[in-house]
């Protein structure tokens, strides 16, 4: 439970940090997204390719390119919008959406049952990972991975926030 709270706080504080950086540097791309090397930590296990019996295909990944500058091409107006507080079965959910470049840049939680600001975050051991609010895309794909269930409260609050944007 403690780890979950710590992880949640880490992710949310990172979101806040991104927002902070954006405010300071307006349209400049976020520096963290330009990092394209992935420091690998050795697991305390036998080396991966020595113990696996299946042949493993060599992946040749494309060279990462820096993110393009933010241009307002999306369907929303830039700004910050607050959604309704919606009763989820475990408490209220209320989101604040940050629109940048016409697209959802961040979703912050104003009212959250798992909130708690008395815990200090010790995140030095964790790598920083990028977070984003999920956003629907067109369904022009070859096939789909995953399946679903519904979190109605989140959807309601996000919808009401985006209705203002």
């Amino acid at each position, binding site marked *: 439970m403690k*780890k*979950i709270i710590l*992880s*949640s706080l880490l*992710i949310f504080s990172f*979101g806040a940090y991104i927002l902070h950086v954006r405010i300071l540097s307006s349209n400049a791309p976020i520096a963290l*997204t330009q*990092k*394209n*090397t*992935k420091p*690998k*930590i050795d*697991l305390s*296990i036998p080396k*991966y390719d020595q*113990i*696996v*019996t*299946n042949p*493993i*295909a*060599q*992946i040749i*990944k*494309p060279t*990462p*390119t820096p993110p393009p500058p933010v241009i307002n091409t999306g369907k929303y107006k830039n700004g910050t919008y607050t959604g309704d507080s919606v009763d989820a079965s475990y408490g209220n*959910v209320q*989101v604040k959406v940050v629109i940048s470049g016409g697209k959802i840049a961040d*979703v912050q*939680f104003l009212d*959250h049952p798992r909130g708690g600001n008395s815990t200090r975050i010790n995140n030095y051991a*964790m*790598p920083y*990972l*990028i*977070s*984003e*609010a*999920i*956003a*629907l*895309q*067109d*369904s*022009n*794909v*070859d*096939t*789909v*991975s*995953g*399946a*679903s*269930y*519904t*979190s109605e409260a*989140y*959807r309601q609050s996000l919808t009401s926030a985006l209705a203002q944007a």
Partner: protein
Amino acid sequence: MRQEQIIMGTPVIIEINDKEARQEFFDEVFDYFKYVDEKFSTYKDTSEITAINKKEIAKDTMSDDMKKVFELSEQTKKLTGGYFDIVTPDGSYDPSGLVKGWSIFNASEILKNHGVKNFTVEAGGDIQTSGKNENGNVWCIGIQNPFSQKKEIIKKIYVSDEGIATSGNYVRGNHIYNPKDKNDIIEDISSLTVIGPNIFEADRFATSAYAMGKEGIYFIEKLDGFEAYMIDKNGIATMTTNFNNYTKQ
């Protein structure tokens, strides 16, 4: 050419884009999945896994495929620090968290052995890709919106020869639990999609990392050759460092 059958209680879809594709290839792969289902389904009274759970078959007299699955399960348990375990809370064996990816991998090998180069094999949202799609482009796979029952895509990834597996508590109920705390129902994470060198690897690590809750994404981050996209119950996605290499066509 794309064909679909319901096997193992889930849609199994095969798409082959090579000109040399023959109906026998599809039939052979579907027959293989039926064989796997007959052997490994815990829902079938006649399956070998059911006989093992009823103690009608001793572990040392198991079939070679069953031995292999047990061996791979044990190996996965070690690789994941115990977050993967085919022993269920009631003490029986349920290897389905490994068998789906393993069987998709083997089905793909059947096609490759026939010289097929451009195909996908998928079962229940877990996919092995090879080569190109029918338009000659790399495969475009959509990640399903975990908050919707309808087909809704929240991310597109572009892959050629990879495995893509998504774990989550959806459709079939809470089918993943934390083996280290069997009363702990994973609810903070809505879905975790893993891209790996093949579907066997992607599936077993997606299942294991999902059971780790919010720590799971960091486990995948440390695995060389794997990327992941984790969606929490609030609709916030967290991705591994090089995940975005797969989001560009």
